[in-house]
């Protein structure tokens, strides 16, 4: 068993306990129904989970995973392309830089008009927001590969595709994982916002709906569900890192013990 995977589990338990403790303190300190009792909320979460929450979570999950998959495939492909090809970089990077800081979320109405009120517009707005991050980190990752490694790869007789397989993709993998981690937080936030419109499914809709009914315990059960969703995606990324970037984990360990 990969020791980095088993270590993840202990860290999780510790973090969870601290979180519950803080929630309880806040609940006792605020004395407001807006911060309900954590115990009641957690029980309510499990009660609602099978029939009510699960379909909402599933709807949100499909949208997030869809957006992430599209962003990774297109973002990494474009990032690699402009990272390797200087001419393409000169043509494309200025466009990426201009678009990067534009608050794409403001275009949600435009997306809904162009791509319909359904899942497509929600997936695309999330994609539009996170894809830039992935393009830029991938491109920078390619540029940071030491020149010596390219010589080394070529001296072994590698051609174009083999260079990607043995050198470029493994070298940028840790960067992709990092940008993925950042993207997950962002994508959940954006999704929550977009699910306030034109849908009856999705955990964002559920939370805001409970709010309008002043049902704070249910609302917190929804927040728990959304957090769980984010948490699971986060852990999936950790797992991918432990699996595909073992050398990075070993390097981090080494750096800590020195």
């Amino acid at each position, binding site marked *: 068993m990969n020791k980095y995977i088993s270590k993840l589990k202990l860290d999780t338990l510790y973090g969870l306990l601290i979180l519950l403790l803080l929630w309880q303190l806040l609940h006792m300190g605020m004395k407001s129904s807006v911060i309900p009792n954590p115990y009641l909320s957690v029980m309510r979460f499990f009660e609602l989970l099978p029939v009510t929450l699960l379909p909402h979570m599933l709807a949100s999950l499909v949208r997030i995973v869809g957006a992430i998959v599209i962003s990774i495939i297109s973002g990494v492909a474009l990032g690699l392309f402009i990272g390797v090809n200087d001419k393409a970089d000169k043509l494309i990077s200025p466009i990426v830089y201009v678009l990067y800081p534009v608050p794409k979320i403001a275009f949600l109405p435009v997306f809904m008009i162009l791509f319909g009120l359904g899942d497509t517009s929600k997936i695309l707005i999330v994609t539009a927001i996170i894809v830039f991050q992935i393009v830029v980190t991938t491109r920078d990752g390619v540029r940071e590969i030491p020149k*010596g490694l390219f010589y080394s790869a070529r001296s072994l007789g590698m051609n174009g595709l083999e260079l990607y397989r*043995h050198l470029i993709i493994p070298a940028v993998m840790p960067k992709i994982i990092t940008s993925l981690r950042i993207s997950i937080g962002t994508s959940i936030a954006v999704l929550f916002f977009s699910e306030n419109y034109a849908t009856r499914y999705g955990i964002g809709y559920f939370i805001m709906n409970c709010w309008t009914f002043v049902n704070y315990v249910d609302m917190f059960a929804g927040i728990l569900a959304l957090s769980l969703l984010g948490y699971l995606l986060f852990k999936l990324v950790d797992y991918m890192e432990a699996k595909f970037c*073992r050398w990075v984990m070993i390097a981090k360990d080494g750096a800590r013990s020195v």
Partner: protein
Amino acid sequence: MIDVKNLAVHYDSERALDDVSFAIEKNTTCAIIGPSGCGKTTLLYCLAGLLAPKAGNVSVNGQPIEGIRKETAVILQDYGLFPWKTVWKNVSLGLQVRGIDKKQMKQLVEDILRELGIEQYKHKYPMELSGGQKQRVAIARALALKPDLLLMDEPSSALDAITKEHLQNLILKLYKAHPMTIMLVTHSIEEAVFLGQRIIIMDKGKIRAILDNPYFGDEDLRNKQDFYDVCLKVRQSMNSGEQNE
């Protein structure tokens, strides 16, 4: 085996190599020595087919070099190991790229790891190894290809004095066990004299002198006066150039 004629390489307006010519016989060794920036690494890259010369010809076994040659192995200065691959995968990489079948590849890699005494590290990553161990992995990766020409760029420059001598002894031993032509670039006079049957002295992109080293091949050479005599000769011909200017 190696024939270099009127080789020239320019970086922008700077001349890295200028009208370099020499020939090296098959299954001999040659050390190229000179100060930093003298063009010795550029010369090695041209021999490896990693750099295209501006003018002149490089041929190996009568074939002009136009890119990477299958039977040439290169060990780069910083070892050129891939940090994301284990020792085993690094060593097998060249074979994998050449499309050698898995069973044969496994045998070749196991044999070479054993020969170099790094079998126990096969599941480790390069960053978990010392400099000397990394250099052995790089040598294993090169020898796994069963090259007829081995090019080395400063094989021991990053190692401490003791490890350096061990490594030089190892290279000599491997040369005797596997007939091949070896060219190595170094800035250490002792290394050049210990490992070079012929010593090319370079400065400012040109060849200053070519010396033959009759004592090459003696594993005990460092303990003999002859060794220091040749070292002195190399040192003098390196210095003579400086005084002429």
